[in-house]
């Protein structure tokens, strides 16, 4: 029973990771790619780690896996935010199909004032 649940979690987790990777290739610019990478890879990885818990029961390994889930949930969005901000600051443009860029508008405004 536990092994079945673990296996299902493992498969679904890997499926989400694969979707994240496809998104990384298919989406047009760095910001959209980060979206796919962050969301899918976070949940996918968390599910894989959770499946460790179902496979082994509560012991040394699964406690580490649970802690890793916590760390991944905290660091992955923070890292994505840092990359996106750094990309924007170093002048990487948005995809041509983008509708608006309030961040660039506001930063240009601020530079004009200076």
């Amino acid at each position, binding site marked *: 029973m536990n092994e079945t649940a673990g296996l299902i979690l493992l498969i679904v987790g890997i499926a989400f990771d694969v979707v994240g990777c496809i*998104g990384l290739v298919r989406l047009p610019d760095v910001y959209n790619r980060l979206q796919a990478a962050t969301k899918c890879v976070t949940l996918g990885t968390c599910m894989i780690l959770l499946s460790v818990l179902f496979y082994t029961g509560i012991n040394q390994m699964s406690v580490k896996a649970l802690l890793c889930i916590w760390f991944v949930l905290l660091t992955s969005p923070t890292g994505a935010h840092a990359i996106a901000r750094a990309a924007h600051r170093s002048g990487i443009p948005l995809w041509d199909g983008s509708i608006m860029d*309030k*961040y660039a508008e506001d930063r240009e405004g601020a530079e004009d004032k200076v």
Partner: protein
Amino acid sequence: MKRFIHFLILMIVWLLLTWSLQWQEVLVGVVVVLIAELFLGDIFPAGAVKVFNPVRFFWLVVYVLVFLWYVVKANFDVAYRVLNLYLPIKPGIVKVRTRLKTDMARTFLANSITLTPGTLSIDLVGDHLYVHWINIVSEDPTRETEIIVRRFESLLERIFE
């Protein structure tokens, strides 16, 4: 007192990670935790300890459930967009306003926004969050704020403010 609580939390994390009570392991843990506390103790958010109040803790549990629901939804959203032949995206960076004041609440809000459907927080300037949105449905700032921020803001207000 504040430092002692940090020390306890970090020590518990260390013991869970090493999963042993041999004196060498514990000694190394104490040294590592003290070094971490010495260099990084100041950036540890001050409001974190507030969460141990039972009412706030209840709302934290509610928040985690709501958050997990949105994370799952976000994944299906991304899967739909990525696997669709026509790539139905309409991206852009929008500016939304938050009424949260404490650092801890804002951190949680920004991270939650990143993990929920279609949005990625880029920067926080004053009270305004810049959010990259993969599929802009409205160009009106109040409505954007409504959609992106409100779903977490009231919960986070109850937990951390």
